[in-house]
């Protein structure tokens, strides 16, 4: 049925009158499912039925962010307490039912800390994280619109339509201090104002869900866990600037998010929350999906628009900015997923509330995907201004191997490194930029002593070279040349003036490239050369890789004192370059060795040395 303002309110109130029941939530985002959440869900379903447990609700939900402990299951007891279980396989799922649910006493194994308090629970004590963009992820079933509506879903749209003028919405968003979460950090309210003030017969709202930065997946989690929050915010934007058509440009690599969005759009239309005459007003707004096809540059807004238009995704110079002249030449608002997901809360709780969180220039919270050599890798949402030390050691449990922290890479292929010296710098847009990195979309890759900065930088540059659209020379040729230089450095063939060359070309690319991809492509090497110059010099001058990662600079040798002659290494060697007989010392023929490292892994006596 199609809601009006009054019936939506009545419906929401009716959804809230539920008797206290035990709820079992299974995190079923892509990573949860990959880790075995389906098996856990089926076991729970069957065991609950077998035991004949009444008043237990089993729910599929989005991601709790504890990627290291997937699959996760949360049990919310009828009395308000809750327990989060991780690494839930079928056997453990069975125990959750037979022991916890049947007796009411939680298990003590596989229990993990609740990451954040429910934003809607005003009495809850604050925890380490604060989930605004992720407020509904892992709480609601993303495939049921009622669950979203029950948690003030579409109340922000209703408020905008009935209680606010477009100017008031712009003012609220501007006053909140919200800045684009896609990377560049442009104030969202101003973007909306430009589009609102540009007269046109047709305007568009676009959501950038082309999350291409390797190591970032917060947008996927929002779309999989709470798709309606994005739809609602896009409709609010449409009302504000005077657009009646929205597009979500999403990576084809995210099939589950695409399915859930399609379902959410269908449900919202059936409820009169999208489509013609929303909530009985004169405002109509429709949303369609457009799929990407694996081109990183399409995350750049002008390239993204070219792709929606069905063309090769190549950027065009700005200005004019899309806010004034965008999709098919019409004024277009483009924001990313996390930005949209935040907006309903700004309208509902007010700009003052949002403004009070964060630092002087960066307001609110930011979602980070913390991965790499970190103990508890996962998705976290924290207030701006938190330090890297708090994220790594307080929230994510420190470095996985117990080794020393070397650097955190933020901003992906466009970003740079944060070193140990800056562990206590408050994280916001400006401070990250001042130390040569950037906020980016929120990927945060933690590296330890085993990671080689030259190797990682080469990895990023290979990525940007491959993804360069080729339109402008600084990016196309400069990127390739820098990659070749880094490649020879990593192979021990670096020249003494290579570092200077990288700096010069990098500088030219920053100044002269057409779009953000080329302008920021030098960031990884500019930043690592600044903080890890010695490591670069070791590769160039001493032909050594201190981290032991660059294969061409390694030599594998066998320690006479430790070799017992078990032949394990000789049997594994793919090029048969290890000689030696049973119970006699083995020797590696360096002229034939391809440095694959198989012998190093095969040796159980620690006799093969890498260096």
């Amino acid at each position, binding site marked *: 049925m199609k809601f009006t303002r009054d019936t939506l309110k009545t419906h929401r109130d009716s959804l809230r009158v539920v008797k206290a029941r035990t709820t079992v939530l299974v995190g079923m985002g892509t990573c949860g499912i990959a880790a075995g959440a389906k098996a856990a869900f089926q076991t729970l379903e069957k065991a609950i039925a077998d035991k004949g447990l009444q008043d237990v609700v089993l729910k599929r939900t989005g991601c709790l962010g504890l*990627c290291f402990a997937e699959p996760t299951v949360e049990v919310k007891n009828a009395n308000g307490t809750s327990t989060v279980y991780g690494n839930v396989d079928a056997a453990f799922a069975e125990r959750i039912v037979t022991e916890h649910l049947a007796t009411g006493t939680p298990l003590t194994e596989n229990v993990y800390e609740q990451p954040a308090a429910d934003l809607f629970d005003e009495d809850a004590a604050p925890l380490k994280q604060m989930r605004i963009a992720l407020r509904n992820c892992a709480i609601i079933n993303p495939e049921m619109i009622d669950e979203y509506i029950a948690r003030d879903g579409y109340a922000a749209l209703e408020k905008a339509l009935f209680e606010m003028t477009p100017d008031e919405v712009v003012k609220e968003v501007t006053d909140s201090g919200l800045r684009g979460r896609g990377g560049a950090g442009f104030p969202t309210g101003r973007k909306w104002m430009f589009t609102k003030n540009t007269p046109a017969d047709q305007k568009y709202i676009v959501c950038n869900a082309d999350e291409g930065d*390797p190591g970032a*997946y917060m947008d996927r989690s929002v779309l999989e866990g709470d798709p309606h929050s994005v739809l609602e915010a896009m409709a609010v934007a449409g009302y504000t600037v005077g657009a009646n058509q929205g597009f979500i440009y999403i990576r084809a690599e995210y099939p589950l998010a695409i399915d859930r969005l399609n379902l959410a759009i269908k449900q919202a239309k059936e409820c009169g929350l999208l489509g013609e005459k929303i909530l009985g007003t004169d405002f109509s707004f429709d949303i369609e999906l457009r*799929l990407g096809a694996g081109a990183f540059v399409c995350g750049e807004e002008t390239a993204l628009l070219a792709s929606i238009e*069905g063309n090769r995704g190549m950027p065009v110079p700005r200005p004019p900015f899309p806010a004034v002249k965008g999709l098919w030449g019409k004024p277009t608002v483009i924001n990313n997923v996390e930005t949209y997901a935040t907006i309903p809360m700004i309208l509902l709780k007010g700009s003052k509330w949002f403004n009070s969180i964060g630092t002087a220039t960066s307001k609110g919270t930011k979602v980070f995907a913390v991965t790499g050599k970190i103990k508890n890798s*996962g998705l976290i949402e924290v207030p701006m201004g938190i330090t890297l030390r708090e994220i790594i050691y307080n929230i994510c449990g420190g470095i996985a191997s117990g080794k020393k922290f070397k650097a955190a890479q933020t901003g992906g292929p466009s970003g740079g490194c944060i070193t140990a010296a800056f562990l206590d710098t408050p994280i916001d847009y400006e401070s990250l930029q001042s130390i040569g990195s950037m906020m980016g979309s929120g990927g945060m890759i933690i590296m330890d002593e085993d990671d080689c900065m030259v190797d990682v930088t080469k990895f990023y540059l290979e990525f940007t070279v491959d993804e360069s659209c080729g339109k402008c020379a600084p990016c196309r040729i400069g990127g390739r040349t820098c990659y070749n230089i880094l490649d020879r450095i990593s192979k021990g063939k670096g020249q003494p003036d290579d570092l200077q060359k990288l700096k010069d070309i990098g500088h030219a690319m920053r100044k002269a490239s057409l779009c953000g991809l080329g302008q920021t492509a030098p960031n990884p090497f500019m930043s690592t050369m600044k903080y890890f110059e010695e490591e670069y010099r070791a590769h160039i001058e001493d032909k050594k890789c201190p981290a032991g990662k660059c294969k061409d600079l390694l030599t594998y040798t066998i320690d006479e004192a430790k070799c017992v002659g078990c032949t394990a290494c000789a049997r594994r060697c*793919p090029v048969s370059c290890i000689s030696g007989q049973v119970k006699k010392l083995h020797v590696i023929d360096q002229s034939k060795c391809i440095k694959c490292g198989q012998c190093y892994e095969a040796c159980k006596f620690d006799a093969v040395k890498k260096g």
Partner: protein
Amino acid sequence: MSKNKLPDELLRFIDEWKDKRGNLIMVLHQVQEHFGYIPREVAFEVADLLNVPVAKIYGVITFYHLFKLTKPGRNRIAVCMGTACYLKGGEDIILELERLLGVGINTVTPDGEFSMEAVRCIGCCGLAPVMTINGEVYGNVKKAELTKILKKVKGGK
């Protein structure tokens, strides 16, 4: 190939999208979903149906990584080469798969059973290193498990 050789389902999709602006990429996705790649004769057919030059269609196909011009194997292996997977040994997984399958990356095994490619971050960084086979995600992949996984996939067909 004459028009009525395109499957009905595809023709219906093209018909539905024909008058929408910016339809080309959506149509190509549908073609690829059906055939596993974009056969040359189908590209010509699409050009006809949508009334766009073939050159434009090939311009788009060759720009985007996801569109394929050659037929993939019956089982499609995609190894993630996002940063987290790279740091945790994604490259070693590729080398080992190349060794086990006896073919290089981006090629199909002679029996047509497997094809393998390196792909961009699939967003499961918490489970790195990750690969997918026919869309199913395998997390925390270890080199030693690969033989078993390949056998299982092949046997399941």
